[in-house]
């Protein structure tokens, strides 16, 4: 199959060998699980259980709210012991609404009957079941998958692309999943293809994962699923870049992949879809890579949603040395966290404990305009120019240089010889612009209300004056009539 190239890109040190070899292990069931209501892009789910309720594994804990949302299910059987705030897996560590479940140790599923033949279901029915199973994009973005399936039905999808790129260094959760559960993944891919009506389903896997490619190719024999080895190059696993490499097409700026007839899902998501449709099991666990040179025994764990990151590190032997930095997700796009007392959520792909040497942190220096960042940018942007404008307090100027097209992949920061935190600037500016946008909308709304009030007040005054004028006119008319009547009476008197 003919492959295309994407512009720029970098070759970060993979470090996948740390965790790629040991098979997936199950995390020993923690005593308590902390299940946040917000694990996805969109509105937080609303809880449907009360403190003290006993729940079965897979039972609905919280229902999705609104158009873009996802329900949350019990990751194990046990008792709901608290509904309240708990630190979120986010750099701020701010608390979010979280259900705490005390495990009863049975890990007993809520029994429910899967459909006899999931392929007999209509696309709508598949999307509904995927939505009810709480499945979100497991590549990290955590966008509700059912919403994506429904959106895609409105545009004509010709190509389904399954993202097995896993271009982030360290992460091997998709790699292991493809090696060990290729049959299930392929079945999930076929179900998604069925739901979208796509003609072809391409699985893009970076060529640094030969075992995964072999396993997936073997599992896909005789199906409409085609496994394609793509060059290992960061950010191959970015939706836009993977589409470009596999189809030669670009997603229009500001548009969606569906605009060019493409839909992209992660291979982990396909596995979750298969579990939901063939076994009636909602998304209550995922594979998480625990790695970094500070970890004693890196590897991949199958983890119930809501387990604490600390439990995972403990299960991997703990720390070899004090880590310099803790990261959720991959090193290129993951978020730094300050502690491990935070729950694993549906979008958590990795827990990394990195040493000082791995982080290679350095004080930022002045930009020497070497344009290494320009050569690295997969979007064709000029990171140095955008950063210069943001530093000068002109985020709108940065937008003129393409800030809104930035995918925050981190390639520019990674290669910058001056160690300038370019992506930090870009995300800060994006946040700043969003805040300004909100403020502008608020000001406009306030102005509109104020204008309406002034209008109303003016009308009231106008009406009052009008009424007073009318009263005066009536009074004048009445006096006039009185006077006339008096005059007439006088005349009559005189005449008499």
């Amino acid at each position, binding site marked *: 199959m003919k492959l295309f190239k994407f*512009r720029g890109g970098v070759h970060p040190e993979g470090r996948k060998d740390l965790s790629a070899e040991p098979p997936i292990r199950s995390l020993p069931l923690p005593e308590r699980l902390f299940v946040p209501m917000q694990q996805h892009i969109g509105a937080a789910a609303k809880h449907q259980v009360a403190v003290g309720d006993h729940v079965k594994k897979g039972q609905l804990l919280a229902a999705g709210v609104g158009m873009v949302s996802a329900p949350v299910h019990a990751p194990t059987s046990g008792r709901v012991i608290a509904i309240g705030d708990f630190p979120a897996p986010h750099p701020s560590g701010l608390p979010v609404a979280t259900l705490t479940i005390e495990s009863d140790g049975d890990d007993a599923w809520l029994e429910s009957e899967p459909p006899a033949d999931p392929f007999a279901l209509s696309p709508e029915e598949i999307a509904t079941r995927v939505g009810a199973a709480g499945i979100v994009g497991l590549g990290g973005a955590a966008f509700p998958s059912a919403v994506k399936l429904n959106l895609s039905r409105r545009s004509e999808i010709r190509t389904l692309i399954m993202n097995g790129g896993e271009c982030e260094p360290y992460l091997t959760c998709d790699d292991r999943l493809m090696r060990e559960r290729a049959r299930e993944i392929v079945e999930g891919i076929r179900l998604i293809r069925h739901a979208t009506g796509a003609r072809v389903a391409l699985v893009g896997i970076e060529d640094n994962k030969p075992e995964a490619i072999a396993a997936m190719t073997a599992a896909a024999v005789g199906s409409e699923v085609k496994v394609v080895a793509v060059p290992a190059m960061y950010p191959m696993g970015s939706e836009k870049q993977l589409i470009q490499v596999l189809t030669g097409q670009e997603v*229009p700026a500001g548009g969606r992949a569906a605009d060019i007839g493409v839909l992209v899902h992660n291979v982990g998501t396909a596995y979750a879809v298969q579990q939901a449709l063939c076994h009636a099991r909602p998304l209550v666990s995922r594979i998480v890579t625990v790695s970094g040179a500070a970890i004693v025994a890196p590897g991949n764990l199958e983890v119930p949603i809501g387990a604490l990151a600390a439990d995972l590190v403990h299960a991997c032997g703990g720390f070899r040395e004090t880590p310099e*930095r803790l990261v959720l997700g991959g090193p*290129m796009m993951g978020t730094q966290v300050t502690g491990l007392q935070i729950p694993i959520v549906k979008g958590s792909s990795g827990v990394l404990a990195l040493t000082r040497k791995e982080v290679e*942190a350095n004080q930022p220096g002045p930009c020497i305009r070497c344009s290494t960042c320009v050569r690295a940018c997969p979007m064709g942007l000029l990171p140095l120019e955008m950063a210069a404008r943001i530093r000068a307090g002109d985020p709108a100027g940065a937008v003129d240089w393409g800030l809104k097209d930035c995918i925050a992949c981190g390639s520019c920061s990674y290669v910058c010889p001056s160690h300038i935190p370019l*992506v930090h600037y870009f995300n800060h500016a994006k946040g700043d612009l969003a805040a300004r946008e909100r403020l502008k909308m608020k000001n406009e709304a306030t102005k509109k209300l104020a204008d309406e009030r002034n209008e109303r007040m003016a009308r009231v005054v106008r009406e009052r004056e009008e009424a007073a004028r009318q009263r005066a006119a009536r009074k004048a008319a009445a006096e006039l009539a009185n006077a006339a009547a008096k005059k007439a009476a006088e005349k009559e008197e005189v005449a008499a």
Partner: protein
Amino acid sequence: MTPIVHSPHAHAATSVSQVMATVMLALTPATLFGFWLYGWPAINLWVVSLAVAVLAEAATLKIMARPVRGALFDGSALLTAWLLALSLPPWAPWWLAALGSLFAIVIAKQVFGGLGQNLFNPAMAARVMLLISFPLEMTTWLAPMPITSAAAPGYLQGLAITFAGVTPADAVSSATLLGHVKTDLGRGFGLDQILAGIWQPLDMLWGQRGGSLGETSAVLLLAGGLILIARRVITWHIPLAMLAGVALPALLAHLIAPGHTPGLAYHLLSGGLILGAFFIATDPVSSPNSTGGQLLFGFACGLLTWIIRTWGGYPEGVAFAVMLMNAANPVIDRYFKPRIYGRDRKGAALVPAKEGAK
């Protein structure tokens, strides 16, 4: 634990000082050749350039109350001085190098805002300043006198040449080829007549010729340039475009008027073209960011060099050409940008292709 920082949480093993060190490494072969070719005075000149540059950098940073340590050891001042030294006549007096380094660092670099802020290449700005202010000292050339030859000045004599201006009687001053040809063409001689006996292409290639300290060995400079390309410090665009910018008009003119305009090899191998193409024009700070811009920039540098050599008042034009294009750099950067993914060249979002069009 360090405060919260944004991704990425990994970094390529690279730094500004490493980039500067690579460039200096790439300059080393040509520099050592220059030392060998012109002896102790050349070494003295190089040392003075570098020492004054570092002192000037430290003093300016101190006066501006900026952190001295980090900026001083990034290697940028050393590199600037190194490039300046390579572009000076090898037996030039010490004060010429000192003044040049001072000007390069204080005026051309720090006054503009320090590393990364300079509009002009500091080494070339200093060279042009010296050339205009001290035309005699800047054009007093010397026939090669290898350090291993009997006539070469010893260490003490070298000190006297550089610091006291005592030129030994047996030193042969000689015009550079470019200067010689320019003068004689101006006097109405034919090219064959002028070049007879003095045009030795092989010597030009290896560097056995009169000229600036480090500009003579085309082969060694080319090797250094290839190191830079291999180590990805520079790309091929600017050097190749600059060589093409000289080669194309030279070729064309030589075809039209072979008796009056020197040919391709003459232009490519003489003066500071190779040094300029690989080490000067490629200065990241003062060259364009996009490949299109770099091609234009490089070609224009070459074309201007050829124009100045052919019709200008000075025999050599690399420094002037590069500075002129430095001034045009912000405009080039404004009009030459890479195409953004999902957009056309003008920046409008792509229109999705229809099914039939595919």
